[in-house]
């Protein structure tokens, strides 16, 4: 009978192997830094979200925390290769440490899709198909919106075709929504979707409708808010340096252009590169979450 008990247990069917030692190491590093939110809390906060995750190949939840790296859709080779290229030809000290094999897809409320990949320094890279992409290799950018134009535009700056996105990330705890404000006074509010470890950051995305492509109606400001509506950060610099349909980038050039100063180097490379003091006010910097 002892054998039969063992045989019956052995005959039970279990789900496939889903071990991930890299994730364990990231969780351990986060624990040592004392900033890890236990998975216990993550799960409690995301019961509804998890149900959605398990039911769909990609994620389509808003204002929730999702366990992307358990159930998210893995990236196709072309996306992995795009991330891998970031470090393939990078000069010494300019490697983002992105882990292309761990790239996952998230579909935000409204249908905007992002590809997200962790970096070795606990940061992350993201890429918006037909939009922009950037890395915050060491979580140096607390609120990092990007304005991207994926279609055609004329020499006089008229946007002739889309998609046009406002997307981005935040590491500001408690961030729940982003207001996208337009030149004509309109405001669109989109939820922040939090992704659990190893990413541990919030993401947002908004496909700008055609009526807001014309001069005088374009997005001009994004405001990060908590669930009670309190402002946590704001940014206008994203709209001074749109991304024009490219794959993932280190984010260094647009970040510098937007006045991010040394934070840009840290965000893009994780290195100790020094830069002269920035001339303008920025919206970057670890722990600030807002600037202007």
């Amino acid at each position, binding site marked *: *009978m*002892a054998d*039969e*008990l*063992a045989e*019956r*247990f*052995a*005959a*039970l*069917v*279990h*789900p496939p*192997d*889903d*071990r*991930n*030692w890299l*994730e*364990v*190491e990231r*969780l*351990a*590093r*986060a*624990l*040592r830094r004392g900033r*890890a939110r*236990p*998975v*216990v*809390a*993550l*799960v*409690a906060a995301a*019961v509804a979200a*998890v149900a959605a995750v*398990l039911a769909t190949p990609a994620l389509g939840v808003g204002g929730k925390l999702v*366990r992307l790296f*358990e*159930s998210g859709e893995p990236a196709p080779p072309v996306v992995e290769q795009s991330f891998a290229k970031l470090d393939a030809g990078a000069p010494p000290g300019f490697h983002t440490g992105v882990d292309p094999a761990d790239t996952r897809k998230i579909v935000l409320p409204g249908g905007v899709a992002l590809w997200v990949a962790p970096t070795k320094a606990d940061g992350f890279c993201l890429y918006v198909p037909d939009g922009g992409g950037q890395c915050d290799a060491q979580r140096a950018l607390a609120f990092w919106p990007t304005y991207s134009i994926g279609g055609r535009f004329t020499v006089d700056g008229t946007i002739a075709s889309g998609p046009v996105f406002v997307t981005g990330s935040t590491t500001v705890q408690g961030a729940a929504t982003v207001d996208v404000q337009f030149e004509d006074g309109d405001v669109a509010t989109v939820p922040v979707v939090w992704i659990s470890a190893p990413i541990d950051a919030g993401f947002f995305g908004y496909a700008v409708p055609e009526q807001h492509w014309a001069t005088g109606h374009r997005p001009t400001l994004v405001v990060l808010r908590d669930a009670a509506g309190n402002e946590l950060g704001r940014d206008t610099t994203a709209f001074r340096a749109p991304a024009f349909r490219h794959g993932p980038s280190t984010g260094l050039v647009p970040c510098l252009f937007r006045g991010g100063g040394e934070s840009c180097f840290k965000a893009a490379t994780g290195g100790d590169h020094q830069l002269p003091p920035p001339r303008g006010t920025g919206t970057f910097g670890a722990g600030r979450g807002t600037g202007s």
Partner: protein
Amino acid sequence: MGAELAEIEALYRQSYLRYRNALAAVTGSYESARDAVQQAFAKAVAERRRFRGEGSLAAWVWKIALREALALRVDFAEAELNGSLDPAIVEPERDVVLSAALRTLAPRRRLIVFLRYFADLSYGEIAEVVGVSEGTVAATLAQARSALKEALTEGVTIDG
């Protein structure tokens, strides 16, 4: 004393499925069991200097993992379970006889059976993890075998 990172990684790579499948009986789902395993090994890595070597590394990690699993179960269904340990086969319909036989055991004894047959722990390791004597482990497993034998000969009643 402390444990080496390589030892913990080797244990993880060798035993992940055992941990996950056994903890699923505690948390009620494989998804939450995976969270418990990941978090348990992360804690083991982060706190490996605190491992005193008085028992096996596997048993030390098992204690952490059980705490994580119980916490998850409380979070998932606090009102229903009141935080009590109530391990069960996640999908009982896969073997209703086995499931019914296990239900005749007290929850703590059921855990012993799961640790033996899902986790493949030795009697000594089970005793260390659960905090009972090896004799209790042996008696519990004998009781489980007896319950299964009875279920097989007398049939079972399926609730619901």
